[in-house]
């Protein structure tokens, strides 16, 4: 790397950092990977948040989006943010993603694997108790995990635990999970929002209806789709829970959310409308948190269907997108640029040394010529409900692709049933994905040759071989190398165009404080704002 490009890169990263597109941690990560000194960059954050000592007290009023009247406490059917955010307050998980995006303990104090990663043992925190007063034991954990397994289960997390052969309560505070194949990521999987620990009943099933849990806050009253009143669980096993009480209010309407924050009816909202973000930032009483996440917008093309069966056509389509323009105009800057492999910079094993694919219509034209597909014309399906601006993004992309001589016909599909009738059925679509904790989960779910959701019908032998190897590899260095190679394969051979990873953008009243880093798995510090944040 020459001196000139190096300083250009630092400038670009610094600009991104100032605009809030990347975090301090990422900045350091990028610059370190590039072998640069980041002394200039480290000044960027010093003026921002000073580490403060958390204070106890107050009622945290939290306006959340995406809540439905018909939601339930059943962890197997968790799907809306209301269910997921609530679950992180009144229930516990075995492990959790920490604010710095590393893996940390929740109910489990420690965990270890056999060398083949086929058997994992979790040690429970003996101080953990349910709100009803009963201690949390290994039986509860076994029953809670079994809720998502077996023939009869209706849990959406079933596919996550297919490798699990048996779950045994070795003693009161020890659980052993036996797998049919090695999986080095099992402790990460335990952070999945479905795998909440509920009290077990005597018949080995769980009591999910009562709303009893072992989380930092217990439910005093509430209704799905309206609001929830919670108060601190004094016997909580974790550190934090500074607020005395938490009030969660479902505010589905973006305007209602923002108004409530401005008028002081709530202290924090879980999502703000990007179109009015800059107006909101002008309000001196409000702080906006713009946190890069692992949630992605993907545009899969069927690799077994003409014209996408030619890798040159796929790469031409990937080269025909001006991602910067799309991020600026569609995501209003609140996104991290994608590089056509499904792993975001905030996620573990992110390969920072793979060069960014730039907008290059000339190169795309050359590739099309090589493929004999000049004047390519394709249809691209999406729906308004995929994400705010989905159709606009596709129309903008169609304009950009014209320069490469590609004609993209954007099809706006109905919102209703988009994921059952269009996704996985039409050869070229634009869809949105929530973040998965590890590359293994994501790749197994949507890029493995035989995955039900292999949305691009991509079958790369080397990739699938590496995927299996990496899964049971406990050596971190070797693992990182494997994921690096897999990402390179996805980028250069895969059938998925990834425009960007969308940030979580949420806002709080200035009197609400948080630590220096914010977890990237869910909005509001991994949905754990009530137990991690405090009032100034």
């Amino acid at each position, binding site marked *: 790397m020459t001196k000139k490009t190096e300083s250009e890169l630092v400038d670009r990263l610094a600009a991104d950092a100032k605009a809030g597109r990347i975090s301090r941690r990422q900045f350091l990560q990028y610059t370190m990977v590039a072998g640069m000194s980041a002394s200039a960059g480290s000044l960027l954050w010093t003026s921002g948040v000073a580490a403060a000592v958390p204070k106890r007290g107050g009622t945290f009023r939290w306006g959340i989006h995406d809540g439905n009247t018909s939601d339930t406490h059943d962890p197997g*059917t968790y799907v809306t943010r209301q269910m997921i955010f609530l679950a992180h307050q009144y229930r516990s998980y075995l492990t959790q993603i920490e604010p710095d995006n590393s893996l940390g303990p929740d109910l489990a104090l420690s965990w270890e694997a056999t060398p083949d990663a086929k058997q994992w043992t979790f040690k429970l925190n003996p101080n953990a108790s349910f709100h009803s007063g009963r201690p949390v034991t290994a039986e509860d954990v076994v029953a809670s995990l079994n809720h998502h397994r077996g023939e009869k289960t209706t849990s959406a997390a079933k596919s996550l635990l297919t490798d699990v052969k048996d779950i045994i309560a070795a003693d009161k505070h020890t659980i052993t999970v036996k797998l049919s194949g090695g999986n080095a990521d099992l402790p990460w999987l335990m952070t999945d929002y479905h795998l909440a620990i509920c009290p077990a009943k005597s018949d080995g099933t769980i009591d999910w209806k009562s709303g009893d849990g072992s989380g930092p806050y217990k439910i005093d009253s509430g209704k799905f*789709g309206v609001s929830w009143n919670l108060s601190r669980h004094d016997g909580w096993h974790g550190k934090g829970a500074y607020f005395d009480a938490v009030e969660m209010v479902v505010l589905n309407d973006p305007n209602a959310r923002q108004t409530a924050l401005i008028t002081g009816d709530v202290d924090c909202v879980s999502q703000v409308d990007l179109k009015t973000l800059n107006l909101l930032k002008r309000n001196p009483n409000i702080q906006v948190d713009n946190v890069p996440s692992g949630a992605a917008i993907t545009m899969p093309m069927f690799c077994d269907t003409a014209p996408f069966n030619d890798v040159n056509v796929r790469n031409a389509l990937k080269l025909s997108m001006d991602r910067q323009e799309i991020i600026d105009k569609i995501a209003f800057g609140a996104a991290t640029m994608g590089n056509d492999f499904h792993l975001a910079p905030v996620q573990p094993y992110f390969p920072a040394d793979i060069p960014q694919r730039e907008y290059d219509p000339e190169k795309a034209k050359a590739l099309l010529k090589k493929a004999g597909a000049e004047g390519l014309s394709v249809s691209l399906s999406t729906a308004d409900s995929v994400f705010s601006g989905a159709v606009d993004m596709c129309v903008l992309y169609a304009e950009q692709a014209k320069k490469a001589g590609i004609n993209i016909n954007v099809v706006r599909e109905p919102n209703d049933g988009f994921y059952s009738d269009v996704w996985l059925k039409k050869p070229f679509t634009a869809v949105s994905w929530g973040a998965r904790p590890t590359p293994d989960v994501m790749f197994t779910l949507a890029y493995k040759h035989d995955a039900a959701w292999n949305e691009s019908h991509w079958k790369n032998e080397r990739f699938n071989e590496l995927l299996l190897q990496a899964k049971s590899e406990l050596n971190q260095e070797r693992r990182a190398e494997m994921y690096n190679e897999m990402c390179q394969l996805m980028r250069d051979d895969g059938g998925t165009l990834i425009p960007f990873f969308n940030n979580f953008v949420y806002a709080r009243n200035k009197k609400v404080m948080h630590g220096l880093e914010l977890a990237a798995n869910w909005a509001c510090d991994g949905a754990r704002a009530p137990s991690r944040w405090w009032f100034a």
Partner: protein
Amino acid sequence: MSDVLKIIAKRLGLGFVTLLVISVIIFSAVEMLPGDIAEAVLGQGATKENVAAMREQLGLDRPAPVRYFEWLGNALTGDFGQSLVSQKPVSGAIAERFANTLFLALYAALIAVPIAILLGVLTALWRNSLFDRVANVATLTSISSPEFFLGYILILFLSVKTGYFPSLAKISADMTLWEKLDRMFLPALTMVLVVVAHMMRMTRSAIINLLASPYIEMARLKGVPGWRIIVRHALPNAWAPIINVIALNLAYLVTGVVLVEVVFVFPGIGQMLVDSVTKRDFPVVQACCLIFATTFILLNLAADVGAILTNPRLRHPK
């Protein structure tokens, strides 16, 4: 009076048949929507086996007519079943929300109806005056704007800029009546603005129509003052159409509030209906729609009975 009772009985019978037809239409409409409850509940993360397991658990694998008649049989005995999603009785879930909606409708109606009739009478009295013009333009503007827009405008000026009223209409059972009325003022005002124009214009034109009749001319010749002609002579004969319009608007206050509920985050029945439709939760959708239909049928009946009572001639149709 017995003829009125006969009419009421006949209309109630017809209303029941209407409800049956509506329940069939709603059932088929929910069935025809793409996707089903199992897919909707489990979301994007579900596999084929999950969906199949849930369908079996909910009995969705049986043919549609069987499920409909099973529901109908229970409904006729007063059991509206359980929500397929939450497994809780429909009646319990709906009761509280419907009470909230009725409360808001009543609140809005108590403000809107007197204002509308008063404005109607005044504009008829001073027709074509500046007052008439201003009242007409103002009410027509408010009825022509979408409810959510009116709501946003009110929030902007009465809540964000001045802080007079709260923008969130979240009410709970432990609030005093006064607190509730304060919290609900902006949504009620929005609905008032939406319904006033219709009732006011009908009052005005019904009265003006009558002002050309010979008996009004007689009264005028006798020297009765203008306001007295309208209130004592014209208004009693104009009630029938006015009552009809009021009934229609009251029905609208109950059934047409979804947007207002969303904007002000009011826990009413409209939001529940929308949520249930997205989840294909048929028993809840059915119960909500039947409540709406019943509201319309009963208010229409009330309007007709009211019209008959104010105009005895209608009791003896030729």
